[in-house]
Each structure stands twice: as structure tokens, then as C-alpha cells.
């Protein structure tokens, strides 16, 4: 009975979140266009600087000579990964701004259900975006995309996802404390964006930033996925092992961090606007 109720609540939260999104449909077009903007820029920058579609310099650094394929893979991993971070933190912030957070948290459902419902909608959206992007990128940008290789790398993406969920939970815990969490989230998202290795190999970053990028779960996931897609599992054992360890740490720390933060929030009270 308890499980059925939680599942119904999960469905309810997801549907509510989906309906709110659908009420501003032009955002969907704007979001989809962002993907084309991102990849289009990559293509035109490469063409404008080298005049060619392949880059020997990038191949030496990453094993990928086609810079557009490199950027597309990074963009898709980043887009999928940000789903969790954004899902966790914005679900708190949106309700905080709307003044409904205390009501939602007072509802007889588990907090995790509340978060997962919001994340579920974003995952669904993320899958829709990918279903639009992949065929159109192949046609428009002549991406050398082997769906089998990408499917082969999915388990690695899911391993990274565990770490990303952990980080999302930890961030949601911090957000509960802040009166104006918008700038904090923006800073966090920008750090993730810059250090995700979506558009460039993190090896070209200064040493300090490379270490930061390695500590966050995004760049290790991008690297492992790219390596599996290009060379297979045998050559990516090191990257995958590191990712498994990192994801585990994030999952534990994220869960414990959020639990602690929530306990504190119950004592001092949630704040609204």
C-alpha cells in the first residue's frame, strides 16, 4: 500500500511538473535550438579556424579527429547529467519562489519522491531532445554516429548518473538553507558547464581546474563514455574504475548530506518568500 501511494505521488509530481513546462511551450523550441546553436558554433568555429572538418591537434589530445562528433557527445552527456542537478535544485527553488515548498514538504509523501518526480520529467524531456537531436545532427552536421557504439556506452553513462544524482542531492540540501539560491545554482551550473569537458578535453585546462574537473562526476563520465564509444571497454578500464569509485562517494555523501540538511531545516524551519 505504501509503495503504491508513493508511486502515485511520484506520478502526480511528474505530471504537475510536465504541465507547468507545457504552459510555456516556446521554451521547448528555445531549448531545442540551444542544442543546434551549440553544435553549429562548434562546426563553424572549427571551419573558420582550420578550414577543415578534422583536427589533428584534437586527435592527438583525445583520439577524436572530428571535432563536431566530439562536441556532440560531450553536449549529450552534459545535457543528460545536468538533468539531475537541475532537477533537484530547481524543484526546491521553483516552489520556494512560488511559495508552495512548505505545502509540498508537508504532504504525506517522501521527500525523495518529490525530487524524483521532478527529475523524471526532466529525464523524459532529455530523451525527447535526444530523439530530436541525434537524427538531425546526423543529417545536418554529417556526424559519424554509430548507434551501437553509443548504446554500448550507456552502462557507463548510468554509472556516472549515480554520482550526478548524489551531487544533485547534496546541492538540494544547500539550497534549502539559502534565502536567494538563484545565484548559487547559477554558479554551480556554470562550474559544471566549464569543467564538464563537453566542448574541450580537460587536459588543456590549467592544473588546478583539471583537478576540480576530475573531482566532479561530469568530466570523468564524458571521458569514459567517449573512450568506450571510440575504443571499447578494454581500453577504458581505468576511466570506468575511477568513475565507479567517484560515483559511489557522491552517492553516499549526497544522501547523507541531504538527510543532515533536511534534519536541520526541520529544526530551524523552511523559509518562504
Amino acid at each position, binding site marked *: 500500500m505504501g509503495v503504491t501511494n508513493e508511486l502515485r505521488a511520484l506520478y502526480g509530481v511528474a505530471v504537475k511538473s510536465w504541465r507547468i513546462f507545457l504552459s*510555456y511551450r*516556446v*521554451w521547448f*523550441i*528555445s531549448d531545442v*535550438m*540551444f542544442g543546434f*546553436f551549440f553544435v*553549429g*558554433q*562548434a562546426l*563553424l*568555429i*572549427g*571551419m*573558420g*579556424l*582550420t*578550414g577543415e572538418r578534422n*583536427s*589533428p*591537434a*584534437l586527435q*592527438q*589530445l583525445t583520439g577524436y579527429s572530428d*571535432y563536431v562528433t566530439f*562536441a556532440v557527445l560531450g553536449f549529450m552527456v552534459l545535457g543528460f547529467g545536468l538533468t539531475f542537478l537541475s532537477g533537484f535544485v530547481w524543484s526546491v527553488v521553483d516552489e520556494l519562489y512560488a511559495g508552495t515548498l512548505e505545502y509540498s514538504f508537508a504532504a504525506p509523501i517522501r521527500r525523495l519522491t518529490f525530487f524524483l518526480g521532478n527529475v523524471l520529467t526532466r529525464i523524459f524531456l532529455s530523451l525527447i531532445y535526444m530523439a530530436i537531436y541525434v537524427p538531425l545532427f546526423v543529417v545536418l552536421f554529417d556526424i559519424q554516429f554509430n548507434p551501437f557504439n553509443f548504446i554500448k556506452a550507456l552502462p557507463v553513462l548510468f554509472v556516472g548518473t549515480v554520482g550526478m544524482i548524489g551531487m544533485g542531492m547534496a546541492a538540494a540540501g544547500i539550497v534549502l538553507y539559502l534565502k*536567494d539560491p*538563484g*545565484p*548559487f545554482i*547559477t*554558479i554551480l551550473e*556554470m*562550474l559544471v*558547464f*566549464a569543467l564538464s569537458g*563537453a*566542448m*574541450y*578535453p580537460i587536459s*588543456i*585546462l590549467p592544473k588546478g581546474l583539471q583537478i576540480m574537473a576530475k573531482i566532479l562526476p561530469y568530466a570523468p563520465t564524458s571521458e569514459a563514455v567517449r573512450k568506450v564509444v571510440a575504443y571499447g571497454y578494454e581500453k577504458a578500464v581505468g576511466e570506468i574504475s575511477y568513475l565507479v569509485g567517484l560515483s559511489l562517494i557522491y552517492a553516499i555523501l549526497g544522501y547523507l548530506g541531504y538527510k543532515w540538511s533536511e534534519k536541520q531545516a526541520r529544526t530551524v524551519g523552511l523559509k518562504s518568500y
Partner: protein
Amino acid sequence: MILPAVIEKEFRMFFRYPLRVISSILVGLVFLLQFVFFGQAVLGGRYSQLLASSTGMGDYPTYALIGYVLWWVSVSPMEAYVWGVRRELQRGTFEMNILSPARILELLSGLAVSWLLMDSALMGIVFLIGALIFDIPLTFTIILKSIPIILASLLAFLGFGFIFAGLVMLLKNIGPFAQIFEFGMLFFSGVFFPLSVMPKWLVSFSKLFPLTHAASAVRAIFVGKTYAEIQGEIVWLLFLIPLYWAAGYLIFKWAEKITRVVGYGGY
């Protein structure tokens, strides 16, 4: 004095949250770094012979930094109208401001000027950090020579953004359209790549954007060209300033007339 009062209000609201200022600078930096690092990874260095032959400037970080900072400032008045007016509509303060003895044109101009000044300050910081990170040589002469071009560009950007003032009153939530338009400006104005990679008709179309000429003129000054050598870009800028101000004003007046009939509406 309405204009300084609106500017002061906007400044107070923005700088009240220091974390917001930091996050704005960080957003500015991260977008810049993404594309510059990508370009460098593809190039295997920072100098592109192809870029030099098509634009006169071969150093990619300098090329991207100038275009990017100007792009950010150029969309600032547009953002002021789109988000500033929407914010007031959401708070329910827009109608009250309309009812005040101030002219609506003054209120909106104050909003646009304040956002333009704030973004110029933020982008000045981003520019300096970018110049430090990418080791871009800056001289007093270059900065001094760039100032008149930048001032003319700001005037053109204000007029260009004015077109959106009327639209936002009429259509309310045009944020997504504005975002698409801003992305479009990045493409059509050659911010991160030379326009030579675009089809000829798109290159001609790009001449309609003040940013194209502003970026091209400032880049030319950075490589040591004189005003006489960039007079084509300067003439374009001077031609676009009255054109966009006039177009913006006419659209605004038309939108205001309709909005007075259908109502400003809140959220």
C-alpha cells in the same frame, strides 16, 4: 529627474545581492572559456592563419574576447526590456509606474540604460580577466582609440533593443524569442568565427546588425588600424543608429497605442 532615479533603483536592486554579481561574472566567463578553449583545442594553439587572412586578426582568444564582450553588451538593452518589464509585470508594479507622472518612455529608457551600464561594467571585468587568462596585450592607445567606437556601438545597441520595448508590452512573455534572437546574433555577427564561412547572402544580412560593425571595428583597432581604414564600419554604425532608434520608436508607439486599449495586464 526620472532617468537617474530609475537607474539608481536598478543598481540598488542588482548590487544588493553580491552573489548575483559574482554569478553574472562567472556566467560571462564560462561561456567565453567554452568557445575559446574549444577553438584552441581544435587549432592546437591560439593563432590561425585562416582567421588572419579572412579578418585581419589571427589571434583567436583576442578575436573571440572582443566579439563576445560586445555581444553581451549589445543584447543588454533587449534583456532589460524583456526581463525588466516582465519582472515589473510579475511584481504588479508596472501598472503603478505607468500611472505615475513619469513618461513611460523615460521609465523604459532608464531601465535600458541602467542594464547597459551594469552589463558594461560586468563585461569590463570579464574582458580584463579574459585578457589576463589569455595574455592579451593591452595598451592605453588601443583602449583610448576604441572608446569612441564603443560609445557609438552602445548608442546603436540601445536603439536596436528599443524595438523589443514595444513588443514586450504587447506580447508579455517573449523571453524565449529573445533568447533565440540572441543566439542568432552570435551567428550573424561573427562573434566566435569569421563570417567568411557563411554563405554570401548571410554575410550581407549580417550588415544589418550593429554588432557586426562594432566587433569588426574594435578588432581592427586592436591590430593597429586607423579610423580611416575602418571608415566603412564607422559609416555603417552611424547609419544604423538613427535607423534603429526611429524603427524602435515607431514600433513602440504602435504597441503602446494597442496596449492602452487591451490593457497592460499583469501575471
